């Protein structure tokens, strides 16, 4: 076992060696056990949707070319793909729905566990939903907004309000022409399940169409709602320093690792953990304090709002337990490996599940409810404190620990670029037009043991910033960048091209901006919408010199995210191909012809440097089309020029 072949992260390598020596299995070992993996599954040409099957199409065209019902490879792969989108959109949107429920509780409570923290954003969002905000009580506005938003999920007629109020007009026109404007959220997901049932549609393009519609209801709907309401409830992030990697675990403290996605419980845990009586109990048990650290997107949510350190990303969840220093791993939903249950049996670590949607064999279940948030948080912390005394032997915490700045949002980042005096997207757009910035890229997504952990994120990001492409990042990709030191402001001088370095140094931002969790990819959409409305870079998102990538993706959520970027006009490159390549026409459509329909398209490339090259090439093509690809002369402004400026 060569740990360097498994992870590019030093702390992870150290723990992988420990696991190997101890003979404890992890995701990398289980991948090896699964190999070789089934080609029909990889190519997307196995259909299990009815009991006449399962049917498989022979990609070498010697065996059967149709399933029992007559479905071709294109039909089968398209059905499977849009079902992945349905699952991904459902996960994000259900997260959004939970936050909306919490928001409703906060709106109705006078002194509850949840309160409205960002009133300015509340008014901004309410206005987007056409709610009167002038001279109205905050709670009244919040109450009305919560009703309106909750009804968006199951709306039966009209258009999803956020898709119509946040997206650029030109983009909406494209959607309307294609008939993919989302009507609501749940309906689009349900319609995918209907359309992929035996004997409904077989036209692969028409199946993809519903996939596009559903993913838009995720990006511009469910995910966006999760982001906006989380900001209102828990406070809009502001740039904040954070520590990253397994080294943030404290040997002498009670360590609670929060893992999963929703901020509702973790945000409360952060506050409750520092209550004097709990700290006192912890001290009585011999601990120096109570340390909260995060994994996956729960980590992103609380690190960007409270500067809570992050223990690692998706592939480090097992490694964190291997340290023997985690007293409780607290999980809610999504990306939690069932393997944690049996792994915790080897250690004193208690795995606690909290969501009725997610129970895991081997875990203790302490059900969370928004109505009793502080109480449940207290109970869980007490379990952790008690468990601290049951630690077996010495802990084994790797030293590796980085620091970085997170907490950038659609609202604060690019205003920060212009400073207080002229806070707007103008400086960003001007930097792109002048060529100091070539463009921007979103490098997002998961970890996948098929790639060397973190290394594809890091290699791709370095290549992009070297070429003056500003990178925004979310999810486990953002955590990879943070752990590699790419979110420190001094990374600019070290890794960036001259143009990007100059901008980062002037404004004091890192070259890779942490914009949040995976539902916060909606922030990237709204950033793109703001770049369009600022002017000078075309009329639509598809005109912008930008690209997206998920170099280590694995989840169905990533498929939905990728598809909503494509449907929003963004060129999107992923490493592992979508499981569609056994269907030639469908593959050709999604990687080429779809660009004519929606302005964006997919590309598959496992080599992160090559993939970055493809993104830069695309950015250059967009710059050419905009006619901004001439290096502008630096000009000294005289008084007349200054008067002509319209700031």
């Amino acid at each position, binding site marked *: 076992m060569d740990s360097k072949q498994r992870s590019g992260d030093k702390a992870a390598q150290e723990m992988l060696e420990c696991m190997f020596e101890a003979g404890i299995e992890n995701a990398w070992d289980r991948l090896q056990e699964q190999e070789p993996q089934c080609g029909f599954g990889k190519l997307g040409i196995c259909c299990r949707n009815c009991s006449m099957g399962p049917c498989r199409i022979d990609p*070498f065209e010697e065996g059967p070319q149709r399933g029992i019902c007559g479905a071709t490879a294109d039909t089968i792969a398209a059905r499977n793909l849009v079902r992945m989108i349905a699952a991904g959109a459902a996960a994000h949107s259900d997260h959004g729905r939970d936050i909306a429920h919490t928001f409703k509780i906060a709106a109705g409570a006078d002194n509850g566990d949840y309160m409205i923290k960002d009133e300015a954003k509340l008014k901004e969002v309410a206005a987007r939903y056409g709610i009167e905000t002038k001279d109205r009580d905050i709670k009244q506005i919040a109450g009305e907004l919560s009703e309106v938003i909750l009804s968006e999920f199951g709306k039966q007629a009209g258009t999803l309000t956020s898709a119509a109020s946040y997206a650029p007009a030109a983009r909406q026109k494209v959607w309307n022409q294609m008939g993919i404007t989302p009507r609501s959220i749940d309906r689009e997901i349900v319609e995918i399940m209907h359309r992929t049932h035996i004997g409904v549609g077989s036209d692969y393009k028409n199946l993809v169409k519903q996939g596009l519609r559903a993913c838009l209801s995720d990006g511009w709907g469910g995910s966006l709602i999760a982001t906006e309401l989380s900001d209102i409830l828990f406070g809009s992030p502001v740039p904040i320093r954070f520590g990253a990697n397994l080294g943030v675990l404290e040997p002498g403290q009670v360590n609670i690792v929060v893992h999963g996605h929703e901020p509702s419980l973790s945000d409360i845990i952060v506050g409750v953990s520092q209550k004097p009586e709990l700290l006192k109990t912890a001290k009585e048990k011999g601990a120096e304090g109570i340390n909260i650290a995060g994994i996956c997107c729960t980590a992103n949510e609380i690190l960007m709002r409270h500067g809570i350190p992050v223990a690692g990303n998706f592939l480090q969840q097992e490694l964190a337990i291997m340290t023997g220093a985690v007293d409780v791993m607290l999980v809610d939903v999504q990306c939690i490996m069932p393997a944690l249950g049996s792994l915790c049996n080897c250690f004193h670590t208690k795995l606690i599940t909290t969501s009725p949607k997610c129970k895991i064999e081997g875990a203790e279940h302490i059900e969370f409810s928004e109505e009793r948030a502080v109480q449940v948080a207290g109970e869980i912390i007490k379990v952790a404190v008690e468990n601290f005394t049951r630690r077996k032997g010495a802990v084994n915490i790797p030293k590796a620990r980085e620091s970085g700045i997170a907490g950038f949002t659609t609202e604060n980042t690019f205003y920060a670029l212009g400073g207080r005096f002229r806070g707007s997207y103008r400086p960003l757009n001007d930097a792109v037009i002048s060529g100091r910035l070539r463009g921007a890229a979103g490098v997002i997504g998961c970890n996948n043991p098929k790639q060397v952990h973190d290394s594809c994120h890091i290699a791709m990001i370095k290549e992009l910033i070297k070429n003056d492409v500003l990178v925004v990042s979310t999810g486990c990709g953002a955590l990879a960048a943070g752990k590699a030191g790419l979110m420190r402001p001094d990374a600019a001088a070290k890794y960036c091209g001259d143009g990007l370095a100059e901008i980062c140094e002037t404004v004091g931002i890192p070259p890779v901006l942490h914009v949040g969790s995976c539902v916060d990819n909606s922030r990237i959409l709204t950033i793109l919408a703001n770049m369009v409305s600022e002017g000078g870079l075309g009329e639509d998102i598809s005109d912008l010199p930008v690209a997206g990538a998920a170099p280590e993706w694995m989840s169905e959520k990533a498929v939905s995210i990728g598809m909503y970027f494509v449907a929003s006009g963004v060129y999107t490159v992923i490493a592992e191909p979508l499981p569609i390549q056994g269907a030639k026409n469908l593959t050709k459509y999604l990687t080429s012809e779809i660009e004519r329909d929606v302005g964006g398209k997919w590309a598959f490339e496992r080599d992160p440097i090559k993939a970055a090259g493809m993104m830069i090439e695309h950015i250059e093509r967009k710059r050419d089309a905009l006619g901004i690809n001439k290096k502008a002369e630096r000009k000294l402004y005289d008084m007349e020029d200054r008067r002509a400026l319209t700031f």
Partner: protein
Amino acid sequence: MDKIITVDIAKCLACKSCEIACALAHSQSGVLEEATNEEPKPQKRVTVEPAAEFGVPIQCRHCESAPCIRICPTGAIQRLDEQSPVLVDAELCIGCKLCMLICPFGLLQIGTEGRAVIKCDMCIERMHTGRGPACVEACPTKALRLVTIEEITKAKRKEASEKLINSK
């Protein structure tokens, strides 16, 4: 043996249908839904091994000069006649594992029942009823084939001679 199982590696998608079909063919019931509950668990005699980005289904080559037959101290491994596949008589096998050590392909294993050695038997019982080996029948891309040596060598001769002509 006239007929052998060949693999077209480029066509193998590693779906492991051959593995399931093999275990099923050597189960008591021969019915998938029942076989999963049988004790001892049905065992496969073919495995799809990972090699670079390919999957390679591999099973006993039924060597003409089989080292396992020569080394077996009890005569448990034998051929019934010239056309017979290499077979193990579980009654005679003492589980000494010498055959496992000497097989150049690592294609023998200890069975869960009685700890006797098991290996591919070319589905000899199925062959008697005129059906081919289960793995070949189950392969959805026809990567596995049961062919005669003559068929293979003839095809190769044809290819080689065409190459000669075309290389002028």
